[in-house]
């Protein structure tokens, strides 16, 4: 079974530039999550999708961050414009609808450096 795919693995940009991350969840997983992990901290949930609907985006800085999940499968997370404090690893995860819905499967993440 293929895992959660994310790209790119690394991205370096200057502040005020824009950046986008892509995620392809495990096939059949209805729920998709984007987490932000700042160095030395645990992952923090940015947004949660159930199929192609948003379940929770309460911690997403909506003035600069946006996310979409087209057709309930792939998802993209965009930052525009980026700030220095956005430097972090952006993790995508997915979980099944039944069985163990709270067991998250993570991708390898995208490490973003904002200079």
């Amino acid at each position: 079974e293929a895992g959660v795919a994310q790209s790119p693995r690394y991205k370096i940009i200057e502040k005020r530039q824009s950046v986008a991350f892509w995620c392809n969840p495990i096939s059949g997983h209805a729920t998709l999550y984007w987490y932000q992990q700042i160095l030395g901290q645990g992952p923090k949930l940015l947004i949660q999708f159930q199929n192609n609907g948003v379940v929770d985006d309460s911690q997403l800085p909506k003035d600069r961050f946006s996310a979409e999940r087209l057709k309930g499968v792939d998802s993209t997370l965009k930052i525009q414009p980026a700030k220095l404090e956005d430097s972090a690893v952006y993790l995508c995860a997915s979980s099944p609808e039944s069985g163990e819905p709270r067991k998250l499967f993570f991708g390898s993440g995208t490490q973003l450096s904002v200079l």
Partner: protein
Amino acid sequence: DQQVKQNSPSLSVQEGRISILNCDYTNSMFDYFLWYKKYPAEGPTFLISISSIKDKNEDGRFTVFLNKSAKHLSLHIVPSQPGDSAVYFCAATSYPGTSYDKVIFGPGTSLSVIP
């Protein structure tokens, strides 16, 4: 407001001995707890979980203990092996559909197992 706490940022243990990683939580609505393991440049991987109806769950060398009255859980690794060296995240959540059903992560404990 940190709802999941791991007060030891790091831990060193000799190979073959027991590793004990601790986690405390503040929200009494949490009823399901997970431990994730993370190697550098990889996403977190699920290790073991426990429901609040149990006080112990075991999987091979890994055992998680839950003390609901103290809002405390611990992960025991016996015997510890060098390959266990990683960052361990404690996470908590509540039943799907409730107000606290997003998975909240602690800041992590970096475990080093010394050969």
